[in-house]
């Protein structure tokens, strides 16, 4: 019979106090683990998502809003940019890919965000060395009315290749677009907001009712944006504008008989543009800084680096919340440590005889000291292991709830390396809280103990 067995049996004998003490440790550890995992997963998701793009170009306003809406789809878009501006970026020699993004609408079923974009979006890496994949025999955005959906959209809505769906116009719950898109592919899970997004071909997006800007407003906006006169803009898009104005006088019936081609460029807008720059990573970083500077001076739009914005957000906001949570959970663990101390220390008076008997049987002072310490460590370890499991169970249960409420994707079975230090920390804490009761056992008078 070794020390661990003796300590374990003593604990088992005082089952209820031992369980309660371990439980308090378990709760502290569970909370800490849950916070650590959620924090790590959320931070990783925020840091990785969008790191495949060098810049996000959008209208002037909050850079954070631009990133949150474009990359994470958890905020409203700021405003729109003229299509011509996107075309300028396409022609910029520093730019490898310029990908237009149009957002605001949601799916009629499930209320998932819609992104109107080009097939190019799926060619780029959404995170370092991570590319989008669709299922076997599935396709990307080929035709005007094609859609590719995220894995969660497919799972929640039960959609698959061939499913047709409609969407709700931005901010108008009662305005369901008549047009239907057909799912051509389901993306493999990415652990990013893309999983809960439905991507539609940008041509189809523009061709939907109310999605093309009224021509006069479009001329005005483009002129304002490029600091040109309306005449200059009209001259530039003369062919398209003439065609549009020619049909303005037609009745709905007449209008319906026309074979509409793609939406004229003047009536197209984008909410943001993703840029992947040419060059090595160093050159890309350098070019991104130059472009940001240029846009700041031009005052027409802004370019935000998703990684930088998220790093700032995580440090300033999420980081502080995380710290607060970590302090709180650490405090809970310390309190449960004090609970163990009180529990063991209080039991010492009842255990005087037990310790004296062991000493009478030949146990050394150091042996009884170690025994008490062992008991403290075992209580903490049991609580710690249960807490780790419980913490993961919390994450497992909370993940879909958090996802449903915030859109943040949490990996249910996530593990964070920080968890590995929880157990050693608990052993140290157990040794500290077990020290004083152990010392009491060490100093106990055997003759007196046998009389008790």
């Amino acid at each position, binding site marked *: *019979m070794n020390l661990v067995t003796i300590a374990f049996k003593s604990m088992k004998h005082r089952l209820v106090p031992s369980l309660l003490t371990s439980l308090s440790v378990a709760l502290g550890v569970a909370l800490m683990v849950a916070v650590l995992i959620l924090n790590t997963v959320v931070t990783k998701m925020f840091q990785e998502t969008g790191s495949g793009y060098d810049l996000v170009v959008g209208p002037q306003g909050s850079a954070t809003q631009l990133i949150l809406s474009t990359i994470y789809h958890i905020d409203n878009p700021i405003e729109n940019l003229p299509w011509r501006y996107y075309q300028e970026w396409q022609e910029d020699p520093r730019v490898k890919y310029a990908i237009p993004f149009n957002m605001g609408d949601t799916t009629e079923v499930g209320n998932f965000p819609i992104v109107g974009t080009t097939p190019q979006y799926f060619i780029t890496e959404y995170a370092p060395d991570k590319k989008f994949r669709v299922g076997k025999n599935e396709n990307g955005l080929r035709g005007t009315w094609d859609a590719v959906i995220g894995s969660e959209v497919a799972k929640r809505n039960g959609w698959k290749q061939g499913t047709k769906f409609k969407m709700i116009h931005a901010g108008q719950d009662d305005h369901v677009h008549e047009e239907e898109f057909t799912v051509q592919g389901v993306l493999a899970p990415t652990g990013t907001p893309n999983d809960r997004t439905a991507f539609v071909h940008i041509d189809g997006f523009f061709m939907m009712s109310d999605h093309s800007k009224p021509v006069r407003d479009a001329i005005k906006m483009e002129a304002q944006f490029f600091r040109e006169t309306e005449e200059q803009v009209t001259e530039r898009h003369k062919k398209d504008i003439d065609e549009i104005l020619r049909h303005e006088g037609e009745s709905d019936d007449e209008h319906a008989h026309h074979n509409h081609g793609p939406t004229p460029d003047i009536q197209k807008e984008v909410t943001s543009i993703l840029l992947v720059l040419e060059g090595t990573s160093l050159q890309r970083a350098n070019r991104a800084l130059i472009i940001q500077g240029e846009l700041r001076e031009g005052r027409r739009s802004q370019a935000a680096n998703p990684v930088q914005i998220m790093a700032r957000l995580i440090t300033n906001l999420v980081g502080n919340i995380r710290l607060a949570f970590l302090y709180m959970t650490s405090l809970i663990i310390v309190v449960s440590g004090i609970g163990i101390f009180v529990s063991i220390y209080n039991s010492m008076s009842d255990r005087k005889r037990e310790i004296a008997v062991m000493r009478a*049987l030949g146990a*050394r002072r150091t042996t009884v000291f170690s025994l008490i310490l062992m008991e403290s460590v075992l209580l903490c370890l049991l609580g710690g292991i249960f807490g780790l499991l419980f913490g993961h169970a919390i994450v497992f249960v909370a993940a879909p709830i958090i996802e449903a409420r915030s859109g943040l994707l949490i990996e249910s079975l996530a593990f964070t390396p920080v968890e590995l230090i929880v157990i050693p920390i608990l052993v140290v804490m157990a040794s500290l809280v077990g020290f004083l009761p152990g010392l009491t056992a060490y100093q106990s008078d055997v003759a007196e103990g046998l009389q008790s």
Partner: protein
Amino acid sequence: MSLELIDVRKSYREPGGAELPILNISHFTLEEGEQVALIGQSGGGKTTLLNVISGLTRPDSGRVIIGGLDVTDLPEPARDRFRAERIGIVFQTFHLLPAFTALENVLLGMAFAGKQSRKYATELLDLMGLKARMNHKPGQLSVGEQQRVSVARALASRPRLMLADEPTASVDLANQENILKLLQETCREKNVSLLLVTHSQEVSSQFERVEQLSDFNQIEVHA
């Protein structure tokens, strides 16, 4: 194993500061394999004497020699080791640990001597007539059975000297005889010296050698 006490004195300090003499033994011997009953009144220092012999309490002065070894001046860890390996103790109130079964209590008696044998522990319990009760906890055993477990535990480390402190005081008459017989016979069989302290004339009458611990201020016990 023989036992010799030479000029052993022990006193306690009373709350008022005055000294309360408990032991004053000029000379006492117990030969190897011998069995002695020591009679004394309650509060007469019987338990203190056993504590001094077993090394649980250090005497104020004098020498305790066991098997030719003066244990008085041994450092405490060495005394603990000596007690674990050479001395068995049977207590009046058994002092079985409630968290452990009968078998585990006996194994515990071996654990601190570093010589555990489940087989021997089982044999001892069998010898005590407890084969069917070895997996019961003390609370599930009768008083007589508990004391028999404590005798088995005291014998578990194969001691050479057995100290018994009123071992039958807490049990009924039928168990008294049974336990005493078991203790004496087992010690005789295993050539273990036995020093039993009691206040009972009935118990002491079972011994060939009986000594009187009559006066706690001037205890003089001679062989």
